């Protein structure tokens, strides 16, 4: 973005939808104080939105959940919607997903109920610019840290962003269709063996990968609770509380899995049969209550290969001018 100046501007929240928060790629380095990373539930969509706008990939955006809401731009800006299709319009005109769009001062973005997955990102050229807390703009909703006053947005909030003022003509870009499909559509969640995988018998482990699980209503940024086949431990081993990783598949005494998500507790005492691979974490962020999921075990080597292949697709070379 050469020749551009940044100018402070605001988005007015007319109505905030179901849960809209400020998110970047997360807050690292404070887990030993009990603070988990938080950050975008679907970091792939956030990064692509930022790529479309020429932002750093870690720039903060608004994460819309299930129902989008209504927002007015106080000044002209360039924005992009990525992730799930919430049927958004700008002053009544339908706008495409995975594309950069120019808005004039005063225009209103309306975004309804999702037609696909759980989350849509409203990325802005220059990035959302609330106060950085512990090095990140991300909201940790459960502990009221960061983002916009540590909480989801409400009607009447004015969210600051750094608009780009420049004389370069605007040329809309979009992500190539083939890449969208490869990045976003996955019916099976890949997992590696968890630290307590050996507490579960071969039969139980097999059941975990053949069963179809459903996402329950008790699902949020902290964790996804699943319902389906009950998984019992071979031996009811006493476990001492230990550190837990993003995407851990915990099996509580009820036997129904809980997937630890971006706002997870930093330590926990339930055994973990598996862990979702890095390349599929963003898919969890798009799961809605009642969606079904299946799991497949893969090796650590394969998980790493999948991640490298996915990373290669998150690149400006897969963007095209409209």
């Amino acid at each position, binding site marked *: 973005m050469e020749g551009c100046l940044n100018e402070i501007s605001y988005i007015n929240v007319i109505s905030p939808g179901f849960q809209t928060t400020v998110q970047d790629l997360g807050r690292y380095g404070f887990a030993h104080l*009990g603070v988990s990373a938080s950050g975008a539930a679907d970091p792939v969509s956030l990064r692509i939105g930022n790529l479309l706008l020429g932002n750093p990939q870690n720039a903060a955006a608004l994460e819309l959940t299930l129902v989008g809401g209504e927002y007015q731009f106080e000044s002209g800006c360039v924005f992009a919607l990525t992730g799930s299709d919430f049927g958004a319009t700008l002053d009544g005109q339908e706008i495409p997903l995975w594309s950069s769009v120019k808005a004039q001062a005063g225009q209103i973005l309306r975004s309804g109920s999702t037609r696909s997955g759980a989350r849509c990102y409203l990325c802005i050229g220059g990035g959302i610019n609330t106060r950085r807390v512990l090095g990140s703009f991300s909201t940790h909703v*459960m502990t009221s840290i960061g983002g916009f006053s540590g909480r989801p947005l409400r009607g009447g909030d004015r969210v600051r962003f750094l608009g780009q003022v420049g004389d370069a003509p605007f040329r809309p870009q979009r992500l190539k269709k083939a890449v969208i499909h490869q990045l976003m559509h996955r019916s099976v969640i890949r997992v590696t063996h968890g630290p307590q995988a050996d507490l579960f018998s071969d039969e139980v482990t097999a059941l975990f990968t053949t069963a179809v699980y459903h996402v329950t209503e008790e699902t949020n940024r902290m964790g996804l609770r699943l319902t389906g086949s009950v998984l019992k431990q071979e031996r009811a081993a006493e476990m001492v509380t*230990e550190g837990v990783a993003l995407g851990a598949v915990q099996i509580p005494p009820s036997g129904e899995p809980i997937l630890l998500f971006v706002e997870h507790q930093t*330590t926990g005492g339930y055994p973990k049969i598996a862990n979702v*691979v*890095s390349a599929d974490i963003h898919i969890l962020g798009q799961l809605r209550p009642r969606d079904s999921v299946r799991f497949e075990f893969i090796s650590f080597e394969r998980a790493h290969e999948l*991640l490298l292949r996915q990373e290669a697709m998150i690149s400006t070379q897969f963007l095209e001018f409209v």
Partner: protein
Amino acid sequence: MFSEVLRYPRLQLASDCSVLVTFGINISREHHRDVVRLFTLLLSERHPAIRNLHPAYCSLLITFDPLVADPHHFRDFIHGLVERIDSVLLPMSRVVEIPVCYDTALGPDLQFVASHNHISVAEVIRYHSSTEYLVYFLGFSPGFPYLGELPKQLFAPRLPTPRVKVPAGSVAIGGNQTGIYPADSPGGWRIIGRTPLKLFRAERSEPALLHMGDIVRFVPITRREFNEMALLSMNQWRVA
């Protein structure tokens, strides 16, 4: 090779971007010291791939960026550090005094803990405030200290139904553990008092009042002292 012979310390990939080092299977000061040694070594090494360190009673989870370090190489790097931990000097423990108002209004379960253990409320306060507690680690939620060890005379079962809201600063007992709630939150532990100190402030350069390895002493204060300190929204604390 030592992991095959000894079993502990045990290193494993907990996910494709985290390594779990386990020093044993029980809560002990010996394992705690190993956790602190490895934690100290990791802080001084500053490997560029490290994202987060999650210490616990007898283990340490290290999360890393798999695009910066290959998972197997990273595990080998951690393995090398674990082999060196015996040479690490433990940092000096700070002694932190935490004022607590043991008052039935701020500690609604004080009487329960007393009658459950067939002792008086005064004895509950005396036992609780005459013990030195080790901060094993901070975990669960921001600034929450896992403290040990609680005198046997004070063990008390958790509430059958957790309270919807436990006020920030509440000092509580859950089974054989004692802790302090850093923020208003739901909770099932028995509340015996409250501190006016803030345990966690994200806006502070040093956000957590307590650190892993600190020694905590609870100092009884009157309701009046509590009110004064709370009014000043005191954010400093005494390090003895």
